[in-house]
């Protein structure tokens, strides 16, 4: 047990050093990111924790849970839009991850694998609750209705015009209106940081479908934010 604690502590020390060297990402319009990494949260020590957890070290698995529980809850909450379902999906995702850990081949990152499990748990509950509103197989619509006819500047940075809690309410409000299949694609790709390939694999759709849904989701969200920011907050 002492060894396990030592491993976790040295991992955490390394993590702090890594974080110190990686300031928050700051992409700019003039410099599109040509080599986007599959994940923003991959940590070099993850495989050590996974190996320890696989060999039966419960403390190592608990450390993985501590590390990702908030992110996974955000995902399940954003997919289901229902607190009870989100909590159930969160619990079942970690329980399934633990019981299937032996079968995890480590050809993807643990976090990606966990996100796939959690997304499936959340989607299962969403389908049960809204059976007629969700299908990943439905034909992709054109972007015509989300291509703006006129563009208006949003004025001073919206981030500075709204308090953090107010901005969160705005974001929750607009993402809630997004059709579930577009919402899930956007969440996995842009919020959880999965690559196009990983998102396609997680949802069982083609990479072309991921790209198409992502474009539509981004344009739809821009359109909804446009209405909010141009009206100065009404949404």
């Amino acid at each position, binding site marked *: 047990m002492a060894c396990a604690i030592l491993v976790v502590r040295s991992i955490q020390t390394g993590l702090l050093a890594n974080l110190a060297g990686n300031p*928050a990402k700051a*992409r700019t*319009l003039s410099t*599109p*990111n*040509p*080599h*986007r990494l599959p994940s*923003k949260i991959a940590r070099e020590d993850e495989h050590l924790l996974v190996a320890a957890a696989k060999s*039966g070290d*419960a403390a190592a*698995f*608990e450390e993985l*849970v501590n590390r990702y*529980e*908030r*992110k996974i*809850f*955000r995902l399940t*909450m*954003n997919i289901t839009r229902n607190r009870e379902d989100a*909590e159930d999906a*969160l*619990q079942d995702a*970690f*329980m399934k991850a*633990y*019981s299937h850990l*032996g079968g995890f081949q480590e050809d993807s990152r643990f976090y990606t694998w966990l996100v796939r499990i959690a997304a499936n748990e959340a989607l299962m509950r969403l389908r049960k609750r809204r059976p007629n509103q969700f299908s990943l197989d439905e034909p992709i619509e054109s*972007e015509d209705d989300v*291509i*703006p006819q*006129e*563009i*208006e*500047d*949003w004025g001073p940075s*919206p*981030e500075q015009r709204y308090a*953090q809690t107010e*901005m*969160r309410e705005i*974001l929750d409000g607009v*993402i809630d209106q997004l059709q579930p299949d577009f919402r899930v694609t*956007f969440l996995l790709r*842009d*919020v959880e*940081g999965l690559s196009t390939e990983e998102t396609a694999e997680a949802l069982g759709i083609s990479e072309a479908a991921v*790209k198409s849904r*992502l*474009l539509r989701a*981004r*344009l739809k*969200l*821009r359109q909804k*934010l*446009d209405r909010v920011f141009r009206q100065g907050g009404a949404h």
Partner: protein
Amino acid sequence: MNCDAVMRSVSSYIDGELGIAIREEFEVHLKACKDCTIFVQQTKFTVDIFSSAELTDLPAEARSRLHEKLRRMTQIPKRP
């Protein structure tokens, strides 16, 4: 490249997935078109604001239930 093509390629541009020649055409258009420049900035802002949003709080009681379940589960010896 016209405005319509820029708007339909904005996602690939943000992700750095456009080929060099197309990206150059895209950026030449942006230099001459204020509306498209604003549109690309707004789309990029949309992606960034969601990806950097504060994490939803995991309620304390939900966290306790999760850890209690896991503790009970991890006490059960795994099959060899």
